[in-house]
Structures are given as C-alpha cells and as structure tokens.
C-alpha cells in the first residue's frame, strides 16, 4: 500500500485532537456523522416517549407541560441538529471534493469552524434546558406572541438556533465556492455528478434563506430581553409578520433537507441499475427549479391565518408548481431503472423504499396545498403525517441509505447486508404503521400538539404507538449492524464494491489523506459506462 489513508494519517496532533483540530474534509465529515447520529437517537427517543404518552387519553407517562417541552425538543433537535445539516455536512463534506476531483473544499478552516458552531449551538440547546425558565415549550416554530410571553428559556434556545444557522450558512458558502472553483480539468458543469447538483442548489438556499431566520430569531431575543416592540401586538407589532419571516426561511429549509437526499438517489440508482442516468439535464435543472420556486411558497403555512384571498390563491398555485420538478425527478429515476440490470443490494432497497414513501408524502402535500382541503386539515395530525413522510421518509431514510451506500468507502469496513435489509424492512413496516394512521385521525379532526384527545381517536393512537416500536427496532438493527461492521477486524479494501462510476469509486478505500495523488482529468459524464453496449451498436 503506497498511500496513507485519512484514517491512519498521523498529523501534528494525536488521538482525539487529531480529529477535532483536523481541517481534512473527510475527518470533519466523520465528526459530523458522530454528532448527527447521536442527536438523531436522542430526538428519536423523545419521539418514542411522546408516542407512549399518546397511547391513552389523559396522562399516560408525563404531565402536559413536559409533553409540550418534549414535542418542542423533538422538533428543534430533529430539524436544526439533524435534518437541515444532515446529508450536506456528512456526505457532502466527505464526497463533494472527491467527486469534483479536488483535494479539499475551498475553505478548509472555515469548514472546521462550521462544525464548532454546530456543536456550540447544540451545547446551547442543552444548557437552555437547565437554566432560566427551563425547557422551551413553544414548538419548534417559536410563534409569537406565546414565545414572547412564556417563562421557559426561549431566548437561549433561539440563540442556539441562530448559531446553528450560522454554521449552515458557512457550509453553504464553502460548497458554492468549492463547486465553482475546484472542479478538476474536464469536469464541466454538466459532467458533475447529480449529488453535486443537489448540494449546489441546497447551498444557495442555505446561503440566501438562513439570514432571514437569523434576524427573526435575533428580534425574538431582543423583544424578550429589552421589550422592544416589533412583533408583540401589545406594543403595536403584528404577530403575522413573524410568521411570514419565519416561513420565508423555514419553507425553503424543507428543500435544504430534501434536495441533497434526491441527489443521493440520483447516485444510487444508476450504480445499481448498471446504466447511465436517464434525463441528466432535467434532474439537474429540477434541483435548481425546486430551490427557486421553493422560495415563493411560504404562504401555504399560513392559509388559515387570515391573509388575503389573492395571496392565498397565488401561494396555492405556486405550491402546485413546485410539485412538478419533484415529479420530473421521480419519473427520470424510474426511467433509469427501466431495462437496467438491477442489483437489489441494500442501498438500492433504501432508494426504492424512499420513492414509495416520498411519493405518498408529496401527494398528501398537494392535499394540504389546496385551499379548501387545507382549511379542514390545517394543524391536524394529517400535517404531522405529511411532513414525517417527506422529511423522515425523505431525508431520514436516505441518510441511512447514503450511509449504507458509502459506508465501505468511508471506513474500509463492511456491514452485514442481510441484517441491513431486515432492518430496512422493519423500518418501512414500522414507519407506515406509525404515520399512516395519523393521516386518518387528522382527517377525522385530531389536532396536532394536543396532550389529550377524545376516546374515539384512541385506536389510531394505539396503532401509531405500536408502529413506533417496530420502527425503532428497525432503526436499532440498522445502527447496530453498522457499528458491528465498523468494529469488525476484517478490512474491506475493494475500491468499488457496487460498480459505481463517479470519481469516489476510483480512489482507494478508504481514501488517502488528500484524496488524489494526481488530480484526475474527466472525459465523460459521471455515469458513463465504457462496458455498455451503445444503442447504435445494439441493433
């Protein structure tokens, strides 16, 4: 072996310091991976407790105030510490430079700073639980006027979200410059892997939407600390303006969450279909289209707040429009599989599960996007079910999918594929048992975030809670299986276990310190296979 892998490399610092002071994009990715999975497991545990509380009407295990704190924390941790950073900070950091044929990102030190901001924000969240008025109970949306009035420690919690937002902005900035400046010779824009296009679109949203959330959160802090009248109706402010500013960020944020996941799908499908991607251009452009139109639909979170009919009609129309590029992607993915010689390996199965679950989430999004049905369904469990199908079934599922796809490359180890498939099967069964009844009870009128409910909803709550146990079993199997693979003595040094075509499969496993000894030159598109029979030769 004439190279030193990034895992074995001994730099200026040893042990843990060699990790937390390293500006190597791959080591930073692993730092993020460990942090994200930890936060995911914490928030998942909180979610399981919430489901347990909902098993019976009235009190089951916790009191109402604790329940409010639990759903707020579940949301804040999942959204700000897991889903939004999610795929870009782990797989983006690790693979973006390799896929572009570069030795690192454009600003490696800034990259490390992003991780420190992320971890710093996470610590602030934890501290906010124990000081001041205790755990925040506003829901992850921090709506005024309640967030101005509650005694819980909103000020510190929103400051934590602000700091994490800063981390997100810097990652986005770093990726944009990397993609513009660090592509290897021959890698034109339309020869970039589609995962990179997903990251590129996401980075722009991170960059341009997050500051709006930043200023909104600062205003909440200033209002609570100094009593400045901006949103407080008692001081002439308008709480609806808060909702506007909040969703101007937080709606595009759902595309921050899902676009990289979609990019990942566009990597996995051609690899396991043994085929070039169908419709490279449309998939790449649909990412940009989603990012752009996604800016203009925030009002659909406010259909029942009394905003004008004209604006509601426009927001509803744009919401339908944004479904089109998502549909374009789905059809192109399916068309890629068509007549491919598909290998049903574990990562591919994640993608299949994603397409089904995400389609249910997307279509129910249209039900919520139309004005009439939304009035009936707004703030019910239908909404909860919808966003768990798109967020958890979209980004969450594919986070694990990506982990199973790139695990051998990242660590030079392999997991047990049978166990992974069983874990996934339980995941999918548990997921649908958990969330599908929520569509039904939401349609029947069960409001979200309520601590108590009428007895007729209990059957759905019981099914849902049982589903949460199955889902958690599946997730634990997946996680334990990966950890077991990681700890096993057996090395797995095959540079290309799946037959992938992008650059990361052309470097050794695990990658060496600066990825490439010699910067590669690219001649073909990312999914070009020279062993393929070309159409003109085939008949």
């Amino acid at each position, binding site marked *: 072996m004439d190279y030193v892998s990034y895992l074995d490399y001994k730099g200026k610092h040893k042990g843990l310091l060699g990790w937390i002071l390293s500006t190597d994009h791959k080591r930073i990715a692993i730092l993020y991976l460990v942090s994200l999975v930890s936060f995911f497991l914490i928030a998942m545990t909180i979610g399981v407790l919430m489901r347990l509380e909902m098993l019976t009407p009235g009190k089951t295990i916790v009191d109402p105030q604790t329940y409010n704190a639990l759903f707020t924390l579940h949301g804040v941790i999942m959204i700000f510490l897991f889903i939004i950073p999610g795929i870009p900070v782990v797989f983006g950091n690790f693979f973006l430079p390799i896929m572009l044929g570069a*030795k690192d990102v454009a600003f490696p030190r800034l990259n490390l700073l992003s991780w420190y901001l992320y971890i710093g924000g996470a610590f602030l969240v934890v501290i906010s639980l124990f000081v001041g008025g205790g755990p925040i109970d506003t829901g992850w949306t921090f709506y005024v006027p309640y967030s101005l009035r509650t005694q819980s420690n909103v000020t510190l919690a929103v400051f934590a979200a602000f700091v994490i937002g800063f981390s997100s902005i810097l990652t986005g900035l770093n990726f944009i410059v990397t993609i*513009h400046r660090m592509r290897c010779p021959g890698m034109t824009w339309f020869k970039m892997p589609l995962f990179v296009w997903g990251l590129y679109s996401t980075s722009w949203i991170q960059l341009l939407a997050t500051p709006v959330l*930043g200023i909104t959160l600062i205003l909440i802090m200033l209002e609570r600390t*100094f009593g400045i*009248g*901006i949103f407080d109706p008692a*001081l002439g402010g308008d709480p609806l*303006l808060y909702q506007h*500013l909040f969703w101007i960020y937080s709606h595009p944020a759902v595309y921050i969450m899902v676009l990289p996941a979609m990019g990942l799908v566009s990597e996995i499908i051609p690899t396991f279909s043994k085929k070039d991607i169908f419709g490279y251009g449309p998939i790449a452009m649909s990412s940009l289209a989603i990012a752009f139109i996604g800016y203009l639909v925030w009002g659909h979170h406010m259909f029942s707040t009394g905003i004008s009919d004209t604006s509601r009609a426009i927001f509803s129309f744009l919401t339908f429009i944004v479904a089109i590029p998502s549909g374009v992607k789905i059809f192109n993915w399916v068309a890629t599989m068509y007549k491919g010689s598909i290998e049903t390996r574990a990562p591919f199965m994640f993608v299949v599960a994603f397409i089904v679950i995400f389609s249910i989430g997307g279509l129910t999004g249209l039900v919520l996007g139309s004005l009439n049905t939304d009035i009936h369904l707004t703030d019910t469990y239908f909404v909860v079910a919808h966003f768990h199908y798109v967020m958890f079934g979209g980004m969450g599922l594919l986070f694990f999918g990506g982990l199973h796809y790139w695990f051998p490359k990242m660590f030079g180890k392999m997991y047990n594929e049978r166990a992974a498939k069983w874990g996934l099967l339980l995941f999918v069964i548990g997921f649908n048992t958990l969330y599908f009844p929520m569509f039904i009870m939401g349609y029947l009128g069960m409001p979200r975030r309520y601590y108590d409910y009428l007895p007729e909803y209990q059957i759905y709550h019981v099914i849902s809670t049982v589903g949460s146990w199955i889902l958690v079993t599946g997730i634990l199997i997946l996680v334990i299986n990966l950890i077991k693979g990681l700890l096993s003595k057996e090395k797995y040094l095959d540079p290309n276990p799946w037959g992938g075509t992008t650059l990361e499969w052309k470097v050794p496993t695990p990658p060496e310190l600066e990825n490439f000894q010699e*910067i590669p030159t690219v001649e073909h598109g990312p999914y070009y296979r020279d062993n393929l029979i070309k159409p003109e030769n085939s008949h």
Partner: protein
Amino acid sequence: MNNEATIGHAHVHRDDVGSKMGMWLFLFTELLLFGGMFILYASYRFMYPENFKVAAMHLDTLIGSVNTILLLTSSLTVALSIVALQRKQKMFSVFLLMFTVAAGGAFLVNKFFEWSTKIGHGIYPKGPEMANLSDGEVVFYGLYYVMTGLHALHVIVGLIFIGFMIVFILKGKQTFDNHQKLENAGLYWHLVDIIWIFLFPLFYLIH
C-alpha cells in the same frame, strides 16, 4: 488563476477569485439579514403611515447627514487605499485606512450622542416616554434602535477588519500583488456604507 495551478499545491492554496467569491456570498447573507428588517419596516410603514411621519420628524437630520458624509468618505478612502497599495505606496495606503477608521469612529461617536439624547428624553424600549406614544411610534423607535444598532455593530466589526488590514500591510502580509484580504475588508466596508444609504432616508428624510 486556473484550476491546475490551484490544485497543484493544496497546502499553499491561493485562489483570489474564490476568496472574493466567498466574500460576495457572505455579503449576500448580510443583505438578506437586513432585508428581513427592511420588509418589517415597509410593512409597518404601510400599517402606520401617520405615526411614522410624526416619529421621523423627531430624528436629527443634521447628525444623520454628517454621518452619511462620514461613511461615504470613508468608503472612498478604503477604495483609494487599495489603489495606493497596488501602486506600492504602502504608507499612503496605511494612512488612508487610518482615515477610514477615524471616520468610522466619528460615525459611532455621533451615533452614541444621538442615542443618548433620545434615551435622555425617555424614548427607549420600556422607557417612561414610550407610554405616551402611539403604537406606530413605538414600532418606529423599536425598528430605529434595532436597525441602527445592528448597523453600528457592523461598523464596529468593519473597523476591526480594517484595523487588522493596517497591521497586515505594515507587516508585509498584504502587498501590492497579494492584497485579497484588503479587498475583502473593503467590500465589507462598502456593504456597511450601502446599508446606511438606505437607513438614512428611511428614518431621517421621509416625513
């Protein structure tokens, strides 16, 4: 600088275009940060047109104008300092940056007196005079303190940046053929300037 040259030496990686691009992207985020505030200003002005007029009459246009002149001049001197450095006039460049710092400092001093006068009159959040004001005026002053305060914070950060540049030039770390950091500091200072150009008419001039 082309790609091959950039990647050839990862450790001594220097990419001025990339560095400038990063700075511009950061400025976009700053614009959107203030953009959120400008949206609020526009909405509330639309909601309380009469109150906003009354409140705006009580701001001192003279101090505002002096501050505008100070900031515009300081932006000019930053731009000139880059040209001076490119022409290898190192000390002149440092002098121009020091002038910038002085002008920025004077801006902050003016701002301090302006705020203290208002606070002396009891006009500040939860202040004694606020109860006598209409809702729209309370919102106006809320926005006034937050927006000019946030802007002043940016002035301070900008001054620190420029202070570092003075040190870098004196130590020879920023030279006539390697001055991207100075350019980035200049860009940041221009942003501070341009935001003030919008704040000034919105708060002082539109009656």
